[in-house]
């Protein structure tokens, strides 16, 4: 599904990713862990298509296509979803309008017929329940005045609505209490199929109690310095990152 080869990325002349290799197959859950500033968000942003980064060398292929050639919106329409570490507040744009527009465009891109207002509302309600998003939040402006936890739930809500093929969750668990964490994890698990994949970027092992990863990678200073199975996460929790360096 996703092949990242020798990826070197710089921002404003500073090299951040220094040759990342990562391969994710359909149905897999990968966890990317690592200390602050190691380049986790950069990796997620590059996959989602955020501007301002320079790909110095290397490649990313998604479903056989050169991802780096695709526009941000086309990546989303092809099934990529990033849960933002810092979801953006957009005053005046209602969640309803936002998601309605997104779903309409994605469906159009895929040659599916648009949802009626009724179908759309039903879908919104179903997914709201799934992630336990408060009824009132959907009528509000995107993330405006949302608490930290609500913002993160809102990311999962959007993911649930858009049903991505590849989801990258950038520290969606940070700042969540254990109940919210369970909701996030349940959301991820509920959407899991044998054709979809998830990359979970996290600081803590505790999320991995609820989302069981197939592979765990440690990113440090822009390189994946160790990969392993889920036991690696436990080891990291115990010993920290120090022993790896």
């Amino acid at each position, binding site marked *: 599904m996703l092949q990242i080869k020798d990826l070197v990325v710089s921002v404003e002349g500073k090299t951040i990713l220094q040759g990342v290799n990562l391969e994710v197959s359909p149905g897999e859950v990968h966890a990317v862990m690592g200390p602050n500033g190691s380049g986790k968000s950069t990796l997620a942003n590059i996959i*989602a*298509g*955020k*501007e301002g980064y320079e790909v110095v060398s290397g490649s990313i292929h998604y479903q056989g296509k050169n991802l780096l050639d695709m*526009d*941000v*919106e086309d*990546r*989303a*329409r092809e099934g990529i*979803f*990033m849960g*933002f570490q810092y*979801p*953006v*507040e*957009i*005053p*005046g*744009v*209602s969640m*309803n*309008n*936002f*998601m*309605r*527009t*997104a*779903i*309409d*465009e*994605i469906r159009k*891109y895929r040659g599916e017929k648009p949802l009626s*207002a009724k179908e*759309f*509302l039903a879908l919104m309600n179903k997914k709201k329940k799934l992630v336990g998003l408060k009824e009132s939040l959907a009528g509000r*402006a*995107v993330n405006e005045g949302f608490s930290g936890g609500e913002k993160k739930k809102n990311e999962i809500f*959007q993911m649930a609505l*858009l049903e991505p093929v590849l989801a990258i969750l950038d520290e969606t668990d940070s700042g969540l209490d254990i109940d919210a964490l369970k909701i996030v994890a349940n959301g991820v698990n509920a959407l899991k199929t044998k054709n979809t994949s998830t990359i979970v970027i996290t600081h803590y092992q505790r999320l991995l109690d609820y989302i069981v990863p197939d592979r765990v990678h440690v990113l440090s200073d822009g390189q994946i310095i160790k990969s392993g199975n889920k036991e690696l996460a436990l080891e990291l929790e115990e010993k920290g990152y120090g022993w790896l360096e």
Partner: protein
Amino acid sequence: MSNSHHSPHTLSAALAERFTDNRKVINDKDPVFVEKLRARAIELFRQQGLPGSHLERWRNTDITQSLDASYYHELKRNTEKINIDEIFQCKVDNFETFLVSQLNGWFAHQDHLLRELDNGVIVGSLREAFRQYPGLIKKHYGTYAPPEDHGLTALNTAFAQDGVFIYVPDSLEVKIPIQMVSLVRTSNPVLLFPRNLVVMEKNSSLTMVHCDDSIEKETSFSGSVSEFFLDEGARLDYYKLQNKDDHSAVVNSSYFHQEAGSALSTHTISLNGGILRNETRVTLNGENARADVLGLYLMDRSQHVDNYVFMDHASPNCYSNEQFKGILDDRAKAVFNGHILVRKDAQSTEAFQSNKNIQLTDEARVVTQPFLEIYADDVKCSHGATVGQLDPLAMFYLRSRGICHRNARMLMMYAFAAEMVNQISIHALKEQIDHMVVKRLKGELSICDQCVLHCKDERQVSFEIDMNKV
């Protein structure tokens, strides 16, 4: 805008001369007080000339290049039988209005120039009111818009021959909004000086919708002056919609005089126009008067919009709120000048002002200048101005959910404008303006043959984005 580049001085002299040459025709059978006011006004105009960039208040908007002494000026009512309903239709679903139209500055309903309705409301031609209600007119006319204010108000006062007059009696709540449509239809470049007067007695209330429109794409210059008198407790909601073509220049000077406990709200929605200058002068002349002066402008190409607000807190305990927002594309230019004057005795004043702009291109320009002049000490006052681009992070967020660049931009611009549209309190009008704003942002709003509120041959546009709340 005009082809010839003349000196403002020569132009002013030529305009004054035009008045002198036509003095008889212009005065026709007007009462003596009108004639006297004209004489005073033309004298003031001779001294001041057209307002130009030499005046601080007009520094960023040069109107002297937008008119020419050779412009055609309809000094007599065109007596050719016209059926205004034929050349112009205006309809908003679920929105019934009492329509009064002006064509080239003249009151257009020739069969009933001035009507006194059963409820005591008088509505019709100002010129006719000069003759039928001289006492009432004399009390107000030229009082709130003194010709001393600026050269163009002086010039309007000299030349003005017609326009709309509305009188609302004591404690009457006018249920149906009065819709004023100012149409320009000509085959030559034309000059007009429409003049309107609205008198509201104590505790009366009125809603007005004022549309400035062009019918044919012909060059025009309109220097209109409107006077509004709100006696104690009167309430006026005034909506002004501007959808003029790029060859037009409009200077609208509106003077509102408010007595104690009166409430004014104005919404100026500028969607198109070559040069638009909206002057709003409000005098809060009695305690507990309140004025909300709001505006939204969406300009592109080389359109120019200038909103000037002068808020005069002349009494204690009054409240004013100015809020203007605009989006500028291409080489468009927006000017905002907000002058708040809090006089010495106007204690417990609350005065707020805000002007926010989105500048979509490097060539678009915004000039925004607050000017606070405060002589009282117990004053709550705030002002703020911003000029910014669309937030790139928000754009990325929207696009990362599959929304294309164009629609992401649209959503953000719409959201920006919606804050103003949402403050329109008539539901049907709000829906219609919302619809027009969407069309405008999508570049689909044309200056059609119809009023700003409705285009006859037009289907309901289908949106790629469904902006309606689901």
